[in-house]
C-alpha cells in the first residue's frame, strides 16, 4: 500500500485562505456598500472554509459579512442513481440574496455538477448582483462548462487517485492528501 501524499498542511491551507481573501477583497470591497458581500458555503466542507474566509475578510475590511450555508442534495441531477438516499443537510440563507455579491465556497471543484446544482438552488432564493466561486482545490476533469473565480491550488491527479480534504472542524486536522483509490472487491 503506497503512502498518502500530503499536498497541503495546516500552514498551507491558512496561507491559501489568506490569499483568497485578499483577492476577493480587492475585487469586491469597493462595492461593499452598494452590493454587500455574502459568503455561502456548500455542505459539507465548503461550510467551514466559508466560515474561515468570512472571519479573515471581516477582520480586514472591518465590516460584517453576510453568511449562509447551502445543501444541494435536493437539486442533484443523480438522485436516482447515487444509491442510498443522501442525507439532507440544512440550507440556511436568512437574508435576501437579491443585489448581493455572492461568494460561493466549496472545497474541491471537480465535475462542476455540485456547482450547477448550487447555482440552480440560489436562483430560487433571488437574483444576486453576481455569484463568484471560490474553491480550495481545482482538480480539473470538468463535465460542465463551469470555472472558479478564485482557486487556492490547481491539482491534477491520476485516474486511480482521490483527493481527501480534512478540516479541523469535522476531522480534527487541517490537511489535504492524495490517496490511491481503494480497490473495489
Amino acid at each position, binding site marked *: 500500500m503506497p503512502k498518502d501524499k500530503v499536498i497541503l498542511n495546516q500552514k498551507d491551507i491558512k496561507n491559501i485562505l489568506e490569499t483568497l481573501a485578499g483577492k476577493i477583497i480587492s475585487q469586491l470591497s469597493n462595492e461593499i456598500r452598494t452590493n454587500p458581500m455574502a459568503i455561502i458555503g456548500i455542505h459539507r466542507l465548503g461550510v467551514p472554509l466559508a466560515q474561515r474566509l468570512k472571519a479573515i475578510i471581516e477582520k480586514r475590511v472591518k465590516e460584517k459579512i453576510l453568511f449562509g450555508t447551502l*445543501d444541494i*442534495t*435536493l*437539486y442533484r441531477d443523480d*438522485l*436516482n442513481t*447515487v*444509491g*442510498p*438516499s*443522501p*442525507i*439532507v*443537510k*440544512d*440550507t*440556511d440563507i436568512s437574508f435576501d440574496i437579491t443585489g448581493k455579491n455572492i461568494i460561493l465556497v466549496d472545497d474541491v471543484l471537480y465535475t462542476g455538477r455540485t456547482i450547477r446544482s448550487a447555482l*440552480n*438552488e440560489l436562483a*430560487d*432564493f*433571488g437574483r444576486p448582483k453576481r455569484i463568484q466561486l471560490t474553491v480550495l482545490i481545482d482538480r480539473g476533469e470538468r463535465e460542465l462548462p463551469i470555472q472558479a473565480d478564485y482557486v487556492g491550488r490547481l491539482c491534477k491527479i491520476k485516474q486511480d487517485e482521490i483527493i481527501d480534504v480534512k478540516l479541523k472542524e469535522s476531522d480534527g486536522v487541517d490537511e489535504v492528501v492524495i490517496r490511491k483509490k481503494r480497490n473495489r472487491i
Partner: protein
Amino acid sequence: MKSEKKGFVWGHKHLLGLEYLTAQEITHILDTGESFKEVSRRNIKKVPTLRGKVVVNMFVEPSTRTRMSFSLAAKRLSADIVDFSPSLSSLSKGETVKDTARNIEAMGVDIVIIRHTAPGTAHMLSRIINASVINAGDGAHEHPSQGLLDIFTIRQKKGEIKGLKVAVVGDILHSRVARSNIWGLTKLGAEVIAVGPPTLIPEHIRDLGVRVSYDLDAVIPEIDVINILRIQLERQRSKFFPTVREYARLFGINSERLKRAKEDVLIMHPGPINRGVEITPDVADGKHSVILEQVANGLAIRMAILYLVKTAISE
C-alpha cells in the same frame, strides 16, 4: 437535536407503519423533516427533487388534511400528483383495489399514497406493485405520517422524546393515530399512557408497553404531552359510552382540568376537532395548543417521507 449518523443507510422503499421501523430510522425521518422545514420558508417554496416523478393519491376514505398535505408536499418536490376519488372511479363499479392499483401503476406511477378502511391494504399493495407505497391510514391499524408529525412536533417543543410521559386520550380502539403514536413514541423511549373509557381501550394495548388509565384527572398532573383523539361521532350509534356530554365531562380537555397539569404541557390533536366534545375551544386555541403547528410540520414530514421512499435503494 439532529444527530449525524455515520454509515446509516435508509433502505425502505415503502412506508407502511411505525411498527416496522427502528428508533434510528424514525429519528432519520424526523431529521430529514427538519431540513425540509426550511424549504417552506423560502421565497420559492419548491425544489426540483422529484421532478418528472408521478405520485397518486389513492384515498378510498375521506380525508382533507392528509390528502392536501401529501399533495402539497409532492408539489413542493416538483412531482406530478394525480388525485383519485373513489366515488368517480371504477371502484364504485366493483373493481378491486388490487386491479385498480395495478392499472394505475401501468400508467407509470412512482409513488402510491393509499388510504383505505381495511387494515393491511398498504401492505397488500406493496407486495403486488413496483411503485413505492405510503400508508396514509389503513382502518384502525396505522397512520404513520400522522404519528411521525406528532413525534416531530413533540421533539421540536421538548427537545427530546426519551423520558417524556405522553397521554393519548380518547378512542384508542378505533384509532390508527393512537397506534402509530404508540409504536413511535415507545421506540424512542417515551412512556405512553392510554386514557379513556374502558369500552374504548382494548385490553391488548398493554402488550405494546402502554400504561392504561380510565381516570384522566388522576394522571393529568404527571403528563408532558396530551394527544387528544377525535371522538368519532359517526360511531356513537354503537354506544361505546352513554352520552357525548358524559364523555366530555370525564375525558374532555378543558381549562379547568388543565389547571392541574404541568405548566408546559403540550396539547395536540390530529384533527378534525369536535369543539366542545373532546376539547373545549379555549384550550384548542390556547397557549398550550400546538394543533396548527402539527399541520405545518405535517408538510415537512411528508416531504421527507416522499423523498426517502423514492431515493431508497432496496427494501
